[in-house]
């Protein structure tokens, strides 16, 4: 955990952290002033019970969720840094003696919060199957070949502008037994922490124009069609490299903050 890029809050006054926009700080009345993260629209995230996805039936809680107010544990979170990264973690095509088979692609984008601000120096973890749609995992034994030169795991940190970049190969579609002739659209799993426990997100990135969306309950569990489209990357010719790799852009948005309430109309911004 590193806080080198972070300025500690002044113990007496609300401060604005240039790197994070944080305005957390006690007021003169001595009350803790915490950032508040906005709640997402109810149709943004999938419901826990979605019978078309059979595995939800015995794993989704039956009781309604209780509301957890955002206090210290919720508005803080692990700030995981360089110690978690190896030299080649961002390039899934250079982690073995030879190159993996398949279409080489560059996946890049920005991690933003809901206010449009970049989330800098934040860990991004990805995993995916190989070009044939096979995961290097003991439980995946469908008859597609493993690639001795592909593990399918990547990690990187966003830069000061919230930008990240991976080199990998286009993942293949993956068959499963959820429904007759079931196939997952090609996807890459993403895991992000943001700055707070409240912002933690695990999601999947899809590719534009995939013909398999119509029958995929995981993708279609997101009820808001605009939110669903936010899971689809964009072909990006500006980062496609001649005679090397196709480019795809995928921005991720974590929950944004509400305005910090200052007492007595104070405005230190």
């Amino acid at each position, binding site marked *: *955990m590193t*806080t080198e890029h972070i300025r500690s*809050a002044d*113990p007496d006054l609300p401060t*604005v952290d240039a790197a994070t*926009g*944080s305005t957390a700080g006690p007021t003169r009345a001595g*009350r*803790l002033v*915490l950032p508040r993260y*906005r*709640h*997402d629209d109810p149709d*943004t995230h*999938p419901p*826990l019970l979605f019978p078309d996805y059979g*595995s*939800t039936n*015995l*794993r989704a*809680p039956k*009781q309604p969720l*209780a509301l*957890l*107010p955002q206090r*210290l*544990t*919720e508005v*803080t979170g*692990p700030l995981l840094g360089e110690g978690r990264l190896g030299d080649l973690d961002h390039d899934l095509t250079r982690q073995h003696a030879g190159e993996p088979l398949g279409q080489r692609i560059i996946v890049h984008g920005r991690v*933003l919060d*809901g*206010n*449009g*601000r970049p989330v800098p120096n934040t860990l991004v973890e990805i*995993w995916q199957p190989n070009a044939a749609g096979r*995961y*290097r*995992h003991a*439980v995946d034994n469908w008859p597609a070949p493993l690639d001795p030169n592909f593990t399918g*795991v990547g990690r990187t940190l966003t830069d000061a502008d919230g930008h990240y970049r991976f080199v990998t190969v286009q993942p293949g579609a993956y068959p499963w037994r959820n429904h007759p002739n079931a196939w997952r659209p090609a996807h890459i*799993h993403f*895991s992000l922490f943001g*700055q707070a*426990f409240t912002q*933690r997100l*695990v*999601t999947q990135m899809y590719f534009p*124009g995939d013909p398999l969306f119509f029958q995929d309950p995981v993708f279609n569990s997101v009820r*808001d069609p605009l*939110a669903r489209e*936010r*899971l689809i*990357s*964009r072909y990006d010719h500006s980062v496609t490299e001649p005679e090397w790799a196709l480019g795809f*852009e995928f*921005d991720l*948005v*974590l929950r*944004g903050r509400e305005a910090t309430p200052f007492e007595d109309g104070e405005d230190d911004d």
Partner: protein
Amino acid sequence: MTERHTDLSPTFGTGPAVDTSAEPAATAALAPTPPLGSTPAQTVGPYLHIGLLWPDGPDVVPDGTPGAIWIRGQIFDGAGEAVPDALVETWQADPDGRFDHPDDPRGARPPSVPGFRGFGRSATDPDGRYEIRTLRPGALPGPDGETEAPHLNLSIFARGLLHRLVTRLYFPDEEAANAADPVLGSIDPARRATLVARPAPDGFRFDIHLQGPDETVFFAV
């Protein structure tokens, strides 16, 4: 298809394309623009182990840390079967009730215990068992002068969970603090026990029931 929305909603298949360059960093405390829609959650699927496991994942504190405790438990589904492909993540204050984080209004403070990470991560084994090595967290002040009892926040990810589940772990020997805790106090008394760990020889045991008669209380954050 490619019409730009004035509210900065993404256009089809583009993801959010936002130009924040016009906003000076110094005044970035509050963005005046309408909120961007969050990226939806999706399940970790059955192969989270290849992407999310670290050799030191369960080590909130390093091996050999004085006073370290193990928090262990099993995760069960609605049929009472163990869940062998889940991931548990924990987040907590240090023993002094402090966070090394800029949004703690008391100030970011490096932990007094060397190597304390605050964060733990453990996949379940074929019997649905997870384990985290940590230190007991301190109590926390709340924004309205209340005190929160020592607790861990947990996120649970698994195949069949389209969104993470969030729960809290409290300690059984903190009766007075637990009785005054504002979160525990907001829960149906008949279900509070699902948030309290049980003593174990080298720490505590905390089982998680995703569904069914013993269903753990889960939270929206």
